């Protein structure tokens, strides 16, 4: 899936995640900020990477600001942002 234009999904509310997607050149790149980075940083990156893989996204830059979202929320926000960016 090709990213054509910047797009976003989600919010900065507690338990949500704000995801921005931009076209990128050499592969996927994730910039993550989270209130639980120490406890769940790795897991959040994993979920974002898995979601990109499922959608066959290969060249995207993701900027994510997490406010304690659960895995399904992260997955939904990333997927929505990607579909809006196509």
């Amino acid at each position, binding site marked *: 899936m090709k990213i054509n234009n910047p797009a976003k999904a989600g919010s900065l509310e*507690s*338990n949500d995640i704000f995801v921005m997607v931009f076209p990128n050149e050499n592969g996927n790149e994730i910039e993550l900020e989270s*209130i*639980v980075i*120490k*406890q*769940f*940083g*790795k*897991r959040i990156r994993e979920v974002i990477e898995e979601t990109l893989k499922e959608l066959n996204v290969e060249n995207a830059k993701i900027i994510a600001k997490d*406010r*304690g*979202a*659960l*895995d399904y929320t992260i997955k939904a926000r990333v997927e929505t942002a990607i579909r809006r960016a196509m």
Partner: protein
Amino acid sequence: MENILGRVLPEYIEGYGEVKPFSGAFNNLGIKSKKQVSVKCVAPSDVKLVESIKEALIKCEIKDGMTVSFHHHLRNGDYVLNMVMDEIAKMGIKDIRVAASSIFPVHAPLVEHIKNGVVTGIYANYMSGPVAEAVSRGLLKYPAIMHTHGGRARAIESGDLKIDIAFIAAPTCDEYGNINGVYGPSACGSLGYAIPDAMYAGRVVAITDNLVAYPACPIEISQEYVDYIVKVDSIGDPKGIVSGTTKITKDPVGLKIAKMATEVIEASGLLKDGFSFQTGAGGISLAVAKYVRDVMKKNGIKGSFAAGGITGYIVDMFEEGLFEALFDVQCFDLKAVESYRRNVAHQGMSASLYGNPHNKGAVVNRLDVMILGATEIDVNFNVNVTTGSDGVIMGGSGGHSDTAAGSKLAIVVTKLLKGRLPIVVDKVTTVTTPGETVDVIVTERGIAVNPRRQDLLEKLKETNLPIMTIEELKKLAENMVGTPEKIEFDDKVVAVVEYRDGTVIDVVRKVKE
């Protein structure tokens, strides 16, 4: 070594001394002695009013290594601590220990004093904001010592915490040192936390922005304890002193928890004539008060007293006749200040009367029900309200441990998750309050009863409430969020957490960068 809760403690901590390990909530009672106090006598011709904070410091013979104390009734609006510490720094004094009953974000200038060696030690019952972060990062030379509200009074009375000069933020004061908190632009009501400081410090300085004609009645702290008085332009910002109206949570999850907690109280059999009650000012805690109020009205129950930091909501219950009296160590809003000024049965109490385990009986011992919060609670019911799950200091016991120990039924109310963080865990980051004093935890998804309270468990089983084990609660939370990675700590101890009796219940170590 390990204490009875399995927390690993050093035997000796530089800047603290030998560690007496916590050995149980009621294991250190018996006969205790109070310290002797030296008094600088005042002759009839002496004048106590001095020109400036600097002059008061000189008269008190401030020098390197002293301990100065402050109280927190002006909360995040307090100017006094910063004014005094700036003056001490300007005089070139070093190595000061600051014994402040609580430290708030407004006290950020302390961080500079910590960095340049003016302040090398801190005693506090609660701290949040930049100072707490600086302590957590290990900037303070000696570890901070965290007390409970009752434990601080105990430490002052016993001499464990020796205060050289106490500074009293005085909303109203006369030139001979009589103080009250009910009048003046910075009126904050009860001055309960300042009373042990006034009674046991080597020197006592009142700092006021409302100097009135002698005598400043009604007197809360009297002239017999006060050495000097300083008049300044302002002791605090009223916006930071009172929180306006304290609001009940509107969050449906919080309300559900409050409703369930009220059903637990009803099922316990304690909610009857003569009922006594305390709750914090947090949204869920206050919502419990709302539902308790409804039940009391519906069933015509007449309570005995409500205690603690008093909010306008509790004043309403009192004025409706649901309680005979209020015990007040600190007013949380203007409505509480107004009631404290007007109502005879709105009784002030000192920190010692409130929660000191080593006196002839504190008010917490007379509490039926206490509503508590938690940052984390472990499967043994030990509660953390000192550090966040990231290991950084963001609070402290305050009255948490005192009321949990004293009350017949200590209920922790909390959401099962905060953000993505599970509240019920295998092992809390820091133990503030021991599990043996916590009876039940109420979350939106289930209620767990401490196995020590089989009597309560039997009663709750007869209700429709979702009773489960605390392990089951923990599992529920983990299934939703996954397992958090462990925070890594250095060996360096940045804070010593004392239980109310002065034994060490835990230490806070520096978080690895």
